């Protein structure tokens, strides 16, 4: 077996400002990794570099493609990269408006990836969309409604359905529960936990909320000033933090 993602020496500079620096790790199938750290520590920068949306200044990101095994995602051609992004990968944006088409119905939002990879049977596309709405606990009666009429929590769940419909192997999430109030967050977390387990998804989840990290992630990467300062099993990092910055992070919340 080989890792799904193999990252080494990943650095992204913005001029002379550091976005992220010298990050390396392996992610295995079914593993959920959390990235935590304060605002500006480079979490989003790193996530974007990992998900082929931001070219790194140096370093490599290799993904285990179905055809050729580990392949540098920035060295492969654009068509293959796009194909990966809409089949093998999912990207869940913090603001669901960035990840959804607000002008088309919920069903079309979920069906889009299917159509993008060649599905041409309306009835089947619609049936799959309905199935996924159900999976994310959205009433299938809303299938033809525009996302504009959905609540924040529903939008986020719709975005998740839209990403999972092609059965991706790896999902990138940037603050998936950000901007939602607490009860809505709990429901979303529960759903994510269930989906990740049931589907055996690997995921990389950026969050500043240590409780979210504890619930979702198997392992954690703690970032400060663009660098990874501590990594390990999630409960070990949170219960027995070693790096001064991690201790500060953990001690500044009530019960992570």
């Amino acid at each position, binding site marked *: 077996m080989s890792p799904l993602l193999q990252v080494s020496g990943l650095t992204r500079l913005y001029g002379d400002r550091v976005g992220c620096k010298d990050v390396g790790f392996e992610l295995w199938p079914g593993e959920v990794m959390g990235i935590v750290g304060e605002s500006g520590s480079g979490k989003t920068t790193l996530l974007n570099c990992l998900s082929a949306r931001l070219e790194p200044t140096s370093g490599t990101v290799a993904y285990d493609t179905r055809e050729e095994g580990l392949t540098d995602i920035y060295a492969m051609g654009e*068509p293959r990269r796009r194909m990966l992004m809409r089949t093998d990968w999912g990207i869940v944006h913090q603001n669901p408006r960035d990840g959804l088409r607000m002008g*088309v119905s919920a069903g079309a939002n979920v069906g*889009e990836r299917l159509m993008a990879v060649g599905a*041409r049977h*309306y009835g089947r596309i619609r049936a799959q969309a309905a199935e996924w709405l159900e999976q994310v606990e959205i009433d299938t009666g809303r299938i033809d409604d525009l996302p504009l009429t959905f609540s924040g929590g529903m939008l986020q769940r719709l975005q998740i359905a839209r990403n999972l419909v092609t059965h991706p192997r790896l999902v990138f999430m940037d603050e998936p529960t950000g901007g939602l109030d607490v009860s809505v967050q709990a429901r979303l977390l529960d759903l994510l936990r269930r989906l990740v387990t049931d589907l055996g998804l690997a995921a990389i989840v950026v969050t500043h909320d240590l409780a979210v990290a504890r619930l979702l992630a198997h392992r954690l990467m703690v970032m400060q000033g663009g660098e990874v300062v501590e990594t390990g099993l999630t409960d070990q990092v949170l219960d027995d933090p070693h790096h001064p910055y991690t201790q500060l992070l953990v001690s500044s919340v009530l019960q992570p």
Partner: protein
Amino acid sequence: MNTSQGYNFAYLDEQTKRMIRRAILKAVAIPGYQVPFGSREMPLPYGWGTGGIQVTAGIIGPDDILKVIDQGADDTTNAVSIRRFFARTAGIRTTSRTEEATIIQTRHRIPETPLSAGQTIVYQVPTPEPLRWLEPRETETRKMHALADYGIMHVKLYEDIARFGRISTTYDYPVLVDDRYLMRPSPIPKFDNPKMHRNPALQLFGAGREKRIYAVPPWTSVRSLDFEDHPFEVQKWSQACALCGSTESFLDEVVTDDKGGRMFVCSDTDYCQRRRDAKEAAE
């Protein structure tokens, strides 16, 4: 070459026409691909078919016979002024007879009379980019064309079916040209889409405001997008043309009086008139 009015032949200077012809050649070489060109100011406002006029000006020669239609009719203000424009600036012959014309400039229709090899049809295009509705960024739509990344075009058709129970797009219905480039056929009714497929005539498209030229060379495949369970279909009418009795042409509904009287007649006035003439002659 100058005409009596003191314009260069067909209004545009030779250098501009060469530039347009180069764009057309490239467009013909890559069926369905939108070629940018340096659109010139024309003595007509945008929306009057300045893109089509420039293409026509680029290809027309003194021996050409020009037909101009607007929504199928030869006698609307728009069609008449474009015909007059070329008659004046190029001194060429004009006609309303489809089979007689060597060049047909059109807004929103393809004639009912089948086109033949050697003819050229020039479409006036208001918006050339089929992907624009879902992707406002030009850089991105270019990339999507480059990668033939068109799957999401079906999202639009999906929405139609979800909302209306069928694909309700009736004009400017998206097509795939030569199994490669996605193309907007200009706002012709989808009734005309099948005529584009493997048509013996050369089909040229000019968008003035957006400065794009594209083409469908003779005998090229043009397929309308659809779903397996919602196949592409053209409009059908339960009645025949009230004037010529045709059951095969595209019909317009016209109001005949101010008491709500209405009837259906061919939108292609040349086709309708000629059928009526033939019937009269036979009687």
